[in-house]
Every structure is written in structure tokens, then in C-alpha cells.
């Protein structure tokens, strides 16, 4: 008893030291190990459900490196981001399209990639229409397919698609072209749900998904058969996170080369780091305040919500500039019309009919419309004489940029000042989805919604927010307008860009005046990359709903 403690203590100390050594001593090793193996390490807040593009759109980020679009809008803008088709043309009837596939294109398993694969992908979707397992829920969905009359491979390099009416949709859609030899035996039911498309995948993109650990990472290897040659890096790892903290830390410590989904605070902090370059990328996302305009089942607490004058007056109480400054710290564009600035072809600030932030004006308009505070309690009453008490729900739908609660606070604050008290309920994405589906499916019952939507920059998607076909899906305000719907279907049938622009502008003005939505802002994604391991990052917009960051053009920095 008396002799023991000393020797025992010594043993314990030695053990502690011994066990601590590998941790502390190699701490530098873990920080700098990433350069040597030429693997690009990227990270984002994402949670792919599965890698099956028919079952989900959540796997967009890993899949976009592995599969090509047939054309896609980026391919129209950037010559180095072409898709499955090298060139395309439309006949004079504006109905028959010819797509020329890259000659000698190969799948990553070495098999030839031909027009038949593209035809298979489209026909697979077409064939499901009207079936119980219609493929209408994923990245590749039947949404829009109804315009197609036929799809056929003329030969290995030629794909012919005939549409029922003229449309630009064929070169704007973002369907991933899949290898027929992998998918041909998959049933619709499986494609819709249980088939997981587990790696290793077979694709035509630059980086092929080799390994996928749910909720952890996706590992890519370079595609040997990529149409412009095997990428120079040794591969890529996409780390999946649920919060931004580890992402910023990883960048700082050097264990990540590129990161997306940073918060403004981290972005500021990282911008001070000499090894790191920060950037912000405008996106196709639109953040909006939506009114529940439905009058039947699922209606809101007051009829005022169905009154365009009321909604228009509220529009004067929303200061988009302050929202951008306060809630997004400048990393967004102030909201205006349906079209977002990145959709440069269609974007318009609508300056002639633009509402200017003016609480007094908003009050005057409400007074004029009969929404007065008659009993002097500071709260306005609607035309039925009931005091306003609006329920605002908010949250972030899956796969969009998070809605900062500060934006909601601002909106609620301004409404409060107008004499319209608002109670805010923040919902997780599941609950938010459940409450905003079509009233027929059990949605509705709320008054105001602050949320965001991230669709593509195609005119069809730009106008989706007001489409009666998209009620409870993209159209969260349940608003319908026959004229708007007519314009939308006309846009779908228009190939000419100029005409298309006009139609979109008309539709955008209709919905702006009717004001089922008040656009708050178009947020940007914040990103950053390290300079030390790779070069060739470029300065172009890195992220887009319709393409991938061109990691394939990165080259390892020569190790000093």
C-alpha cells in the first residue's frame, strides 16, 4: 500500500503520455495530407437519399459529375460544359429535333455510349406516363414529357425527338442520360422506389461515383473515357454534412479543397485566410412570401388573403433591400419578379410597376381597401370585421438554401407595424412540405408562407410558381389565373427565345400585380476553395442547378 502508489502513478503517466503521442504529434500530418494524393476534396450540406435519379432529386450533386444532360442550359452557354449531345438542331416545323451524340463516346465501363442510350432514357420516362408507378418524383421525371410525341435513335450518333408543339424544353431540361445496359431490366416500380443505383456507377461524366456512404461521403474516380480525356486529378471526394461548421473547419485545416454552403459568418472569416479564395454564386433560388389564396378547402384565416389589393398593399411593406442586407448580409439580390437574375434571358427588374418600400403607403392602401383598424386597438380588421391574426409558416424545403430566420423576423415585424399581427411557426422540411401540399392532399390552413424554391432557369420553371398544374408542388400560393396558364402553355410551345422572353415578361407582370407572392430575394451560394493543392479553379460561376462545377479542369499544383 505504501510502496505502490508511486510506481502505479508512474505507469499510468507513461500510459497516458504514450497514448497521447500519436494524436498530438501527427496533428500536422492530418492537416496537410490531402495535397499529395491529388484527390480533390469538396464538401457541401447535402444528404442524397439514393443515387437513383428517377426516385429523388436530392442526389443531384454526386450524379451531375457522373451523368450528362442531353443538352442542358450550361451547355448552351459554355463550350467546355457540353452534355451528351455535341450538337443539336431543330427542323423548320419547330417540332423535329436532331441531336448528334459525340462520336466515339464511351461509358465509363468502356462500352460505347450512343443515341440509343439517350432514347432509352427518354422512352423509359415516356412509357411510365399514366402507369401507377409513373416516374414523376425524381430528377428525371415525366414533368414536361407530355410535350413529346416520339423519341428514336436514327443511328448510334443521331437522336431524333419529335414534339407535339414547338418548345425549347428539350434543350432546357435537366434529365440525366443513363446507360441502357444497366437500366434496361429495371421495372417502373423499382425505378420509382427501391432501386438504389448503388455504386460503382457507369456514366459519361468526368467523375464517376465509386463509393457512397450514406450521410458521410461520395468518392469519385476520374472517367478514363471522358469525352475530352481523363481528368488530371486522381479523383474526388464529396463530403456530406448537415451543418456548415465542419465545412469551414475543413477548409481552414486544409482537409478540404472546395466547399459550398458556407454561412456568411464563415465566409467573412475565411476571406481573411491567404490560402483561401471565397466566392459567391447567384443561384436559381427565389425566396418569397406567399399568400394562401385558395378560397375553398385549405383556406387561410381571412378572406383578405384572396384579395389582390390586400396582397399588393402588403407588398409595399416589404423592404427587399433590408432583407438582403440584414438577413443575407448582402449575399443575395433583392427580389422583384418571377425571373431570377441568373436567368439573364428572362430577368427583368419590372421597374415600371415595382412597389417601393413605404409602410405609410401600404397603410393607406389597406385603409382604402377597407382593411382599417376601426376599434382603435392597433390591429386592423378584415371586411368581415375580424381582427387580423395571421399565421406565418416558414422553414427550408429540402435541397434549397436555408431560409434565415432573420428574414422572417423582418417580414413579421413590418406586418406588425402595419397593424397585422403575425404568429410565426418554424417547421422542419418534412412538416413544411406536409403543410404546403395541395389542399386536396391535406395542405393549406396557413395564411402566409416564407420559403424558397430552387428550380431551373428554363422559362417553364420560372413560371412554375403560378402554374395551376403545380399547385402544392411549385405553386405554393395555390394561386391560379387562366391568362397566366395560357401564357405558360404558350411558352412551353415556343422555341424562339425572343418570343419566349416576351411571354415570360407578360406572365411575370400578371403575377406581380396579382401578388400571390412577394419576391424577397434571390440568394447566392457561398463557396470557397484552397489555393495550395490544385490550380485551374477559374472564376466562372461554380454552382448551378443545371450543371456542375467543372472540377474536371483542375490540375494538381506541383508539390514543392
Amino acid at each position, binding site marked *: *500500500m505504501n510502496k505502490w502508489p508511486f510506481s502505479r502513478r508512474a505507469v499510468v503517466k507513461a500510459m497516458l503520455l504514450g497514448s497521447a503521442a*500519436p*494524436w*498530438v504529434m501527427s*496533428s500536422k500530418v*492530418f*492537416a496537410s*495530407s*490531402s495535397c499529395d*494524393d491529388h*484527390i480533390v*476534396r469538396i*464538401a457541401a450540406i447535402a*444528404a442524397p437519399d*439514393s443515387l*437513383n435519379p428517377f*426516385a*429523388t432529386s436530392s442526389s443531384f450533386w454526386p450524379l451531375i459529375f457522373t451523368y450528362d444532360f442531353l443538352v442542358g442550359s450550361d451547355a448552351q452557354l459554355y463550350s467546355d460544359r457540353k452534355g451528351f449531345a455535341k450538337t443539336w438542331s431543330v427542323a423548320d416545323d419547330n417540332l423535329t429535333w436532331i441531336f448528334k451524340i459525340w462520336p466515339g463516346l464511351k461509358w465509363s465501363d468502356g462500352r460505347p455510349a450512343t443515341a440509343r442510350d439517350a432514347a432509352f432514357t427518354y422512352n423509359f420516362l415516356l412509357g411510365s406516363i399514366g402507369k*401507377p*408507378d*409513373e416516374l*414523376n*418524383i425524381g430528377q428525371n*421525371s415525366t414533368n414536361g414529357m407530355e410535350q413529346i410525341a416520339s423519341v428514336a435513335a436514327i443511328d448510334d450518333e443521331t437522336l431524333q425527338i419529335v414534339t407535339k408543339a414547338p418548345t425549347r424544353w428539350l434543350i432546357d431540361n435537366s434529365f440525366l442520360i443513363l446507360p441502357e445496359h444497366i437500366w434496361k431490366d429495371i421495372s417502373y416500380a*423499382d425505378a420509382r*422506389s*427501391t432501386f*438504389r443505383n448503388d455504386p460503382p456507377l457507369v456514366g459519361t461524366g468526368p467523375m464517376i461515383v465509386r463509393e457512397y*456512404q*450514406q*450521410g*458521410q461521403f461520395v*468518392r469519385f474516380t476520374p472517367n478514363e473515357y471522358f469525352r475530352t480525356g481523363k481528368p488530371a486529378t486522381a479523383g474526388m*471526394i464529396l*463530403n456530406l*454534412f*448537415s*451543418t456548415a*461548421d*465542419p465545412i469551414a*473547419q*475543413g477548409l481552414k*485545416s486544409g*482537409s*478540404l479543397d472546395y466547399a459550398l454552403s458556407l454561412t456568411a459568418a464563415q465566409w467573412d472569416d475565411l476571406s481573411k485566410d491567404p490560402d483561401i479564395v471565397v466566392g459567391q454564386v447567384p443561384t436559381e433560388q427565389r425566396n418569397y412570401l406567399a399568400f394562401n389564396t385558395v378560397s375553398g378547402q385549405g383556406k387561410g384565416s381571412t378572406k383578405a388573403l384572396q384579395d389582390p389589393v390586400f396582397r399588393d398593399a402588403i407588398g409595399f411593406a416589404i423592404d427587399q433591400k433590408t432583407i438582403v442586407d440584414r438577413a443575407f448580409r448582402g449575399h443575395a439580390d433583392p427580389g422583384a419578379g418571377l425571373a431570377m437574375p441568373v436567368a439573364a434571358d428572362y430577368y427583368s427588374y419590372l421597374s415600371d410597376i415595382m412597389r417601393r418600400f413605404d409602410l405609410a403607403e401600404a397603410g393607406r392602401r389597406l385603409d382604402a381597401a377597407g382593411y382599417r383598424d376601426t376599434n382603435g386597438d392597433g390591429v386592423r380588421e378584415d371586411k368581415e370585421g375580424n381582427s387580423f391574426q395571421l399565421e406565418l409558416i416558414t422553414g427550408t424545403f*429540402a435541397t434549397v438554401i436555408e431560409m434565415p430566420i432573420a428574414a422572417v423576423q423582418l417580414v413579421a415585424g413590418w406586418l406588425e407595424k402595419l397593424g397585422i399581427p403575425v404568429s410565426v411557426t418554424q417547421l*422542419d*422540411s*418534412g*412538416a413544411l*412540405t*406536409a403543410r404546403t*401540399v395541395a389542399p386536396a*392532399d*391535406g395542405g393549406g390552413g396557413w395564411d402566409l408562407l416564407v420559403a424558397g424554391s430552387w428550380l431551373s432557369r428554363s422559362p417553364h420553371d420560372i413560371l412554375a410558381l403560378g402554374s395551376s*398544374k403545380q*399547385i*402544392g*408542388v*411549385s405553386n405554393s400560393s395555390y394561386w391560379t389565373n387562366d391568362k397566366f396558364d395560357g401564357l405558360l402553355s404558350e411558352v412551353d410551345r415556343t422555341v424562339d427565345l425572343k418570343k419566349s422572353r416576351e411571354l415570360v415578361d407578360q406572365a411575370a407582370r400578371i403575377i406581380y400585380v396579382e401578388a400571390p407572392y412577394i419576391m424577397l430575394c434571390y440568394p447566392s451560394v457561398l463557396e470557397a476553395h484552397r489555393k495550395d493543392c490544385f490550380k485551374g479553379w477559374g472564376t466562372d460561376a461554380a454552382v448551378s442547378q443545371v450543371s456542375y462545377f467543372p472540377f474536371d479542369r483542375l490540375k494538381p499544383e506541383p508539390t514543392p
Partner: protein
Amino acid sequence: MNGGRTSRHFGRILVRAIITLLMVAVLNFFLFRVIPGDPASLLLGGARISVTAEQMKAQRQNWGLDRPLFPDQAVDYLSATLRGDFGYSFKFRGRRVADLIVERLPATIVLVSLAQFIAIVCGVMLGLYAGWRRGGAVDHIATGASLLLYSTPSFWVAMILIVIFSTALGWLPGYGAYSPGVSTRSLDQVLDYLRHLTLPVSAVALGLIGQYVVVARAAMSDVVTEDYMVTARAKGLTGGQMLMRHAFRNAMLPVVTLITLNLGYVVAGAITVEAVFAWPGIGGLTVEALNARDYPVLQGVFLLLGASIVLANLVADLAYGILDPRVRQ
């Protein structure tokens, strides 16, 4: 006579455990069915798509939701659960819930059992010693520190550890279970894993240590006042002999119970810590499933948690019966 009594004791414990587990299963069954909204529409994938009535009907049939809640659905549910079939995840399309859980379980078990082990060794020893030498310096320091740790939410400890050791000092990684793409040489991998494990394990262990010190100390404080300790002293035993031969085992009785009960929380215990460290365990899965309304996964996790705690309770009761001969009566 003794054997009968003992087996009856154990039998009663077993019956209790089964009843509790059944109650968990029943709650589990209803949980899925009382949620607002039609499960069928949830099944149709986030429901941000239009669904035809036929599709809904097909889904309902597919999942047996068109049949009466009781007994058909309940019986199906129970028999499937007994077979270990928890159905398919809504969110992770096509993944079996059982597979998802099995995939995530090891990370949690490694994290929590390592933390438990450290906490038991440090906390119990420290607590017992503090209780044995009450009022001494070790007692004062250990008690103060353990109360402090006991009062601190472990996820906050986790955040502070990250700020200190990861952000400021850069010594240890503060997230995930591995460095992205660490070379596949096995030793590197293991070391890398251990480095990633260090902070989460510390965060979980620190919270547990506080608890163990408090309980072990209280148990020992009770034991030293017992009459049989006077007997031991009267027998001329030395302090060490009294501690090891008489005090230790009696003081361990409540401690063992706490430890076994805590083992049941292996799965549940680290949800927040896992969230902070982005640790790829059951905790992370629970939060993801919660956000996505993935009720089959939640059901599975819930049943797993319930079962593990019932099991731990069972083991605790049995262990108590073995350690303390009095309980068997």
C-alpha cells in the same frame, strides 16, 4: 426452495421487461398512425408532386394501409417487427430500415462504449475513493469538478472542445469519423479514426464521469456508515482490506445498476454530441429522419432504443440479483 425463489425473481423481471417492450412496440405502432397527414402521401415521396387517386390507392394497398388498423395492421406490424423487418425508409428510398440502422450502429457503439469505458474507469474509481476518504482533498476536487460536469450539456462541452482543440489549436479534427480520402493504408486509417474519435469520446465521457463520481461517492458514503464496516474494523482489518473486501462490493451495487442502465442509453445517449461532431451514428440518422419525416426509420430507431434500454434494465436487475443475494427474495 431457494432455487425456486430465485428463478421466480428472474422470471418476474423477464415478464416485466417483455411487457415494457410490448408497450414500446404499441406506442411505435400508433406513433406512425397518429401523425397528421396520410401516410400514403408521405410514402409518395415528400409529396411535392401531384399524385393521382389511383397512385394513392396503389400505395395504400402496397403498404397495407387500406386494411383495418386493428387487428390486421397491428398484427402485421408486430409480426414484421418480430422478424426484424422494420420496413423501408421513406427518405432513403428503397433502403431497408434495418440496414440503415445496422450501417450506423457501429459508429455509435464505438463512440459511446469507449466513452462509457473511460468514464466508468475514471469516474467510478474517483467517486469511490472520494466517498471512502470523505472530506479529503481528492473528495473536494472530484466532487466540485463532477458537479460542474454533471450540470453541463454534453453538446456544449463538444462545441467548446471543438473551439479549443480544433479551431484554435488545430490539434484534433472536430467533425466526421475520418479525414476525407485518407490513404487506405490500414495503420493510417486506424490512427485517423482514433484521432477523429478523441473529441467526441471526450465530450460524452466528461458528462458521464460527473454522473459516475456523484453516484459512486454517494454509494460509498452510505456503505462506510454501515454496521458491517464496524464489524470489519473490529476484526482488525486494515483500511485497504476494509475497502476492498467489504466496502467495494457493497458500494458497487448501485453503481453497477447505473452503469448497466447507462449502457442502455448507448444508442440514445449521444444524439446531440453526434450532431455536433457530424459523427455518422444513430444520432445523426435520428435527426435526419426527424427532419425528413422518415417515420419507418424513426420507428426502427425508437424500437431499438427501447429494446436496448429494456435489455439494459433486465441486465441491471439480473446483475443486482447476482451481486446482492438479498434481492432474490
